[in-house]
């Protein structure tokens, strides 16, 4: 059962690497200026996709983008403080489905790729955001 032992080692490695603070990923995004570009592209993607447009077309996009940059920067331990609402109160009553949630993740993936964020760094941010589905998805 050498394979089982390998798997245990791998899992232990993952545990170690996910506990560390990660300034490298924040740098891979290009700091706050890089995150700002990603969030600009992200909003363009959200407004271009018929699945997500209805949610975002009539909100204060400038303010939302500012809060998203803060939030992503804070999640990546880039030294920002997120000043917006918690995820549950921000999304309550919007009737967001799992498919809507995944559509938003796809938009973010496209935006990050477009802005040249390395794939591994993309996934590190997504790993921080993904569990938020529990507070965001209502149906």
């Amino acid at each position, binding site marked *: 059962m050498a394979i089982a032992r390998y798997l245990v080692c791998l899992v232990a490695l993952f545990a170690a690497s996910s506990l560390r603070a990660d300034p490298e990923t924040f740098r891979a995004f290009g700091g706050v200026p890089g995150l700002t570009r990603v969030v600009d592209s992200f909003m363009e993607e959200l407004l271009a996709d018929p699945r997500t447009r209805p949610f975002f077309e009539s909100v204060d996009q400038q303010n939302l983008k500012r809060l998203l940059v803060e939030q992503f920067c804070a999640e990546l331990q880039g030294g920002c403080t997120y000043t917006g609402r918690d995820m549950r109160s921000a999304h309550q009553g919007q009737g967001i489905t799992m498919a809507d949630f995944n559509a938003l993740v*796809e938009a973010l993936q496209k935006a990050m790729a477009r802005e040249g964020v390395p794939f591994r760094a993309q996934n590190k941010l997504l790993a921080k955001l993904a569990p938020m589905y529990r507070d965001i998805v209502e149906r």
Partner: protein
Amino acid sequence: MRIRQAAIIGLPILLSAGVAQALEYGGRLLLTGGVNTIEGAAGGGLTPWAVIGGYGTRDQIGGNAFFSHVEIDDYRLEVRGAVLGLFDRVELSFAEQRFDTRQVGAALGLGAGFTFRQEVFGAKIRLAGDAVLDQDLWMPQIAFGVEHKRNNRGAILRAIGARDDEGTDYYLSATKLFLAQSTLLNATLRATKANQAGILGFGGDRRDSYRIQPEFSLAYLLNRHLAIGGEYRFKPNNLGIAKEDDWWDLFVAWAPNKHLSLTLAYVDLGNIVIRDRQSATYLSLQVGF
């Protein structure tokens, strides 16, 4: 049979057209439905995963049809089938396998090109967890599945020592995507009596009881569309006349979009009846929603 097969394979396509208006579909992320095992179930090529096939979310239906061609040194395996995923909870699958013995058939006195045909009816239920989204938890996605297999060559199977031409595998799979590491791990425990996955029947002269066999997959995501990885499947060894080895593979899977995926693999199958060290090229095409 032709008609039934066409109906089963046509089903996801019809559904995708019909259901599109009634229900939204295809809401899950790319590659998270896995590819199709040679037994139909969603997973890697050799081992089922706990994910539900297709791209349907908990409000949606998903599905796919697939064709796999495994060109083995001295044999050939072709599989066609379909998967239906219901509300990211239940998966139903069907696969029809044709195992062509080519020249080995002649050597065994069965005739060149003697072919075993097996049908596999599968069902899987997700018990807990979300392999993709629960990134803050250690809990993997866990599913329980059954695969009922029916081989059409009962007389030959009994002649080589197999006890049955029908059998059912039961499995428990745990799958976790470690997104921050761009890595997916799967472990499956399969209770089975099958010889060479059932192509050589079920149970044998050496042993005729269920054995629990582990199976592992590891995949690394290179980008949103491309994954590479490997799998290892332990196998029982029930037949006196034909030693059976574990299987492993190395694969690359490419999904340009949610309607298409292509998987290419190198597979090591070990000994198969009278031919040792059989390796194979596996190519699988999946069309789905």
